[in-house]
């Protein structure tokens, strides 16, 4: 197994780990963090595909490499927006976690359907 393939399998586990954190953590900041972990895994998977496209003296296919650079910048922009939304939510409601259904359904004073 080549080094690139090894990192390919590493990236698939990273996606799984991040997905787990995204689902089970009730804190929204942890969800943002886990989502960035998934992003790292997806970018790495794309990097492995770029590496496989090595040809004529280039260490990898430059097109996916450039797309990953674009992706990293866009991921940062999305994270910054998500964090700003979260901090505003905290300012307005004092909460920064997703509550489970059983708690919001039972004795709440919100009379929304």
């Amino acid at each position, binding site marked *: 197994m080549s*080094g*690139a393939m090894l*990192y*390919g*399998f*590493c990236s*698939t586990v*990273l*996606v799984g*780990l991040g*997905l*787990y*954190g995204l*689902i*089970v953590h*009730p*804190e929204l*900041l*942890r969800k*943002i*963090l886990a989502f960035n972990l998934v992003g*790292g895994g997806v*970018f*790495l*998977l794309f*990097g492995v*595909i*770029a*590496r*496989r*496209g090595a040809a*004529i*003296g280039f*260490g*990898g*296919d*430059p*097109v996916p*490499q*450039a*797309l*990953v*650079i*674009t992706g*990293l*910048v866009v*991921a*940062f*922009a999305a*994270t*910054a*927006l998500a964090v*700003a939304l*979260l901090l*505003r939510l905290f300012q307005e409601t*004092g909460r*920064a*976690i*997703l509550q489970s259904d059983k*708690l919001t359904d039972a004795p709440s004073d919100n009379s929304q359907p």
Partner: protein
Amino acid sequence: MAFDAGLAVLVLGVASWTIAARDTFAAVVGFVAYGLLLALIWVRLAAPDVALTEAAIGSGLTGGLLLGASTRLRRTESLAVGEKPAAALRAATIGLCILVSAGLAAIILLLPEPAPTLAALAAANLVATGLGNPVTAVLMAYRAIDTLLEVVVLLLSLLGVWSLTPDHLWGSLPSPHYRADSYETVTFVTQLLAPIGILVGIHIFWIGSVAPGGEFQGATILAAMWILTMLSGLVDAPAVNRRWLRLLLIIGPVVFAAIGLAGFAMAGAFLAYPTNHAKLLILIIEVPVTLSVAAMLTLLVAGPPERSSHR
């Protein structure tokens, strides 16, 4: 090979820590380490341009942003303890995640042989762009429209962040104010580091035409230096309604789009460059874009305006 295996195990361990850590602050510190290890992997995958971006933006700026947020949300953490999902749900989630990972692993095993690549095509046209770095050629020439849209996305997300400002604080200053005198070591280190950092940022930007580096990596270092001087209290964050700031933010995308439109007259297509002047035009785009991106990244980390005076 042994190095690769060790690095893969290490990155998986740090990623698990980032998910499992009880304390959010500790998890974010794990995330920064995760980003730096990923940057090492990018070097191993012969992608030094991506390694620089991963270390600077993926690990550095994102880490700084999340660290700031975790400090502000620290006292909400205890509330989350009673919200952990039930064991059955967690087990089901583990099953789902293993399924996703296994599916992706199967896709990797089924990738076509020989691997499709655009490397030959990128190399064949490199001379026409006047650039020596194929990744920069993709970003600034072959797929320049992606890069233009990326800069616009950064600008839009900054507008999104600013739009979260409460009405009465509009036009005020983002991020807390840090006093210079109470952090003497920080002040000293910043005074020492910032001029060198700015030079390094400009160098990374300039070298990007022939070697690993480029406008986004350079802009991130410039942004980091601006953030550092704000954190040390040496300069204050700018009020968001300053005219010079608005001009700094839009000059990059405007010049980029203008040269793109001029491409219709010069070479018959949007963002097409005439063969003899490609490198000059790319440089005319890159300088203002680097400055604008540095300002956007800095202000995205600083967040929405939240205090009215310089106190």
